[in-house]
Structures are given as C-alpha cells and as structure tokens.
C-alpha cells in the first residue's frame, strides 16, 4: 500500500468512527483532520468535500465485500440457482450484520438531508449493474427469459431482503440472523425469482419438443 493509500485509509477509518458517533452534521472536516493528524489541505486532496467522504465511509465496507460475493455469480452459469442462492446468502449475511444495519440507518437518515442521496444512489447502482450483468448472461444463454436486467436485479434484491431487513432496520429485532436463516431466506427468494424469470413457456415447450424429438432419434444420428 502506498503512503497515500495508507493516509486515505486512516482518513476513512477516523471519519467513519466520527460520523457513526456524531452524525453528518455533528462531524466537521476540521475535527476529522485533528483526529487523523496532518493538514486540512491533505484531507481535501483525498476527499474534496465532507459529502463525498461521508458516502465513501458508509459504502467502503460494502464495496470491499462485494467482489468476493460477486464471485458466486462468476460461474459459467451452468447452475444459476445454486449461484444465486450462494450469492444471496452471502449478501444477506453481510447486510444483516449489526454494523451494516447501523450504517444503513445512518445513510437513510442523513442522505436526503445532507444532499448525499445522489452520490449514494450512484454507488448502489454501480453495484447493482454488476448483478445485472450476470443476469444478462443468463438471459442471453436462455436460462432466464429476456427482460430488463436492471429491473430483474432490483426484483432479486427486493426478494432477498423481503423477509429479514425491515425488522432489523426498525430495531424490532436485535439479533442478526444466523447462516441457516439467511440461507433459507435466500433459497425462498431465489425460488420465486427463478420461477418469475424462467424462460417463457412457448420457448420451454419448443425445447421440450426438441428434446422429445432428439430422444426418438436412433443413436447414430445423435
């Protein structure tokens, strides 16, 4: 890691701690500078505004986590159900952790007020488009029906979060779900998703007819 990267990391860690303890308004760039050490100019050379630093702090953990999670979707797509299930479980384990629930609370409570909503939304959209590109692959290879992959990614995300997230955000439930629970939620979400995005029945029937025809062929013609 370069010296500059180390500095950047130190800024993010300190700012993250301050934002979580004091909120967006209660944290100043001066305060962050005094915690990190160095000059305000250095701070601003890394992050041009408090808004950008705030968004970076809230999203850093998720962005670090996602590459590993997305590897589940990297397969040659032979078993999209298993790929999506593993991906879904991994996402849920992360976003349901107490720290990430708290980060999401802070994002939702501060985004609209501090004018950082657009910055958050762009980052979230970038992550979503990585999921969408996997779904595009599945659509192209005929494993899923053709539709808007961004929309499909929204639907998949919504199904994954449906059972668990809201009670955690509203603090009606305090303990994070264990692996068994997230796996079950992911399985149910993926089952509904795959049924909904299965290739259209016309196409399925065509495939079935083709298969039946192939089965009737004498072995040497295969």
């Amino acid at each position: 890691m370069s010296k500059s990267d180390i500095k950047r990391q130190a800024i993010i860690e300190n700012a993250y701690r301050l934002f979580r303890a004091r909120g967006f308004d209660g944290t100043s760039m001066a305060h962050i500078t005094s915690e990190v050490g160095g000059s305000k100019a250095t701070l601003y050379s890394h992050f041009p505004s408090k808004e950008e630093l705030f968004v970076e702090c809230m999203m850093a953990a998720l962005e670090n986590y996602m590459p590993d999670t997305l590897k589940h979707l990297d397969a040659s797509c032979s078993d999209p159900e298993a790929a999506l299930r593993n991906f879904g479980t991994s996402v849920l384990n992360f976003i349901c952790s107490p720290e990430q629930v708290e980060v999401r609370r802070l994002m939702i409570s501060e985004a609209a007020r501090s004018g950082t909503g657009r910055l958050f939304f762009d980052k979230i959209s970038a992550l979503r488009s990585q999921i969408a590109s996997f779904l595009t692959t599945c659509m192209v290879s005929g494993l899923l029906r053709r539709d808007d992959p961004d929309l499909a990614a929204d639907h998949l995300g919504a199904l994954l979060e449906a059972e668990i997230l809201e009670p955690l955000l509203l603090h009606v439930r305090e303990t994070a779900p264990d692996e068994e629970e997230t796996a079950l939620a992911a399985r149910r979400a993926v089952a509904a998703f795959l049924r909904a995005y299965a290739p259209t029945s016309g196409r399925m029937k065509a495939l079935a007819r083709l298969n039946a025809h192939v089965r009737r062929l004498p072995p040497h013609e295969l």
Partner: protein
Amino acid sequence: MKTKTESKRQAILQAAAEVFREVGFDRASMSDIRERIGGSKATLYNYFPSKEKLFFEVMHHAKEVELEAITGELNGDASDLKRELVRFGQKFLAVLYSTEAIAVRRLSIAESRHSDIGRLSFEQAVAPIEKQVAEFLRRVMKREALRTADPKIAAMHLLSLLESELLQRVLLGVIDGVKPEAINGAVRRAVDVFLSGYERR
C-alpha cells in the same frame, strides 16, 4: 400532574402538524409548538415526551385512515387476482411514497435505536399490512389460484417487490415525490413477477 384530556392532545397534534409543515421536522422545535398552543413546556412534554414521538403521532395519524383503505382493496373474492393486486399495489405505493409517510419511515429507521418509534412504526403500519396481505394470499392459495406456499413469506415477497423499483430513490431523496404513472408501471411489473413466481405449474 393534571389529567390529560383528549381535546388538549388533539390541539397539540394540530399545532404540531402546522409547525412541521411550515418549517420541516429538523427546524421545528418543541418551543415553537408550545408557543402556538400556549401553556407550559412541562404540559407539552407530559403529552409527548419528545419531538420525535410527536412527529410520529402527527404523521402516522394523517396516514392511518389511508392505511385502512389500502387493505380494503383486498376484501374482494379475488376472481380477478391480477386486477386486485394491481389496485392494492397502486394504493399501497401512493401512501408509502407520500411526503409524510417517507418522513415517518426515515425517522423511524433513524431513531429506532434511541426511541420506540421504530417499534411503533412496525407494529402500527408494517405488521398489519403484512398480516392482511398474508390473509388474502392464504385464501387465494386455498382456492388453488396460486401455488401453495407460506402466505406470510409470499406477502413479504409481494410487498418488497412493489417497493423494489422506487423506494431506494425516494428514501435517499434522489427523487422528490413519485408520479402516478411511475407507480403504475412499477406496480404492474412487480405484480407480474409476483404472479409468475407464485403461479401453479
């Protein structure tokens, strides 16, 4: 301590609603509200222990009647399932994305660790709707119009699908208010996906 009266409580809610509307939640103070109704600050706090609590009551009551109207859409016999779900979805999102409901939702999430607003919000808004939708889906599954599944889970899937396209944008303040056409499109797509996800094969 003086006994609380319903008329005083209503007067406070009325005054608070005006103040919140005029200056917004952040800039509104308990003093502003007290000035409008007169009386002491102690009296005001006796009725409502915090600005957050008062805000929740004001906004929630404004929406309570509408919440009942939403689930009323699900009392039909579901002879045209898609139509009923679309109508329900449209009403649900119209209320959910109203300025008041979004303000309540943000606050409920933001304050959930420090007050009981999150719990109130869950018990008075989220859970009853989930329950009604689940009841409806249970009837539909019994009639074999959808595949057999846990109706509670199916209800959560449906509600989450309805929110999927726009909620994030609205909560983050990327868009300010949602037009009916945008709601209608999102509802149609969500209901289609829900129905094909739960249809009998």
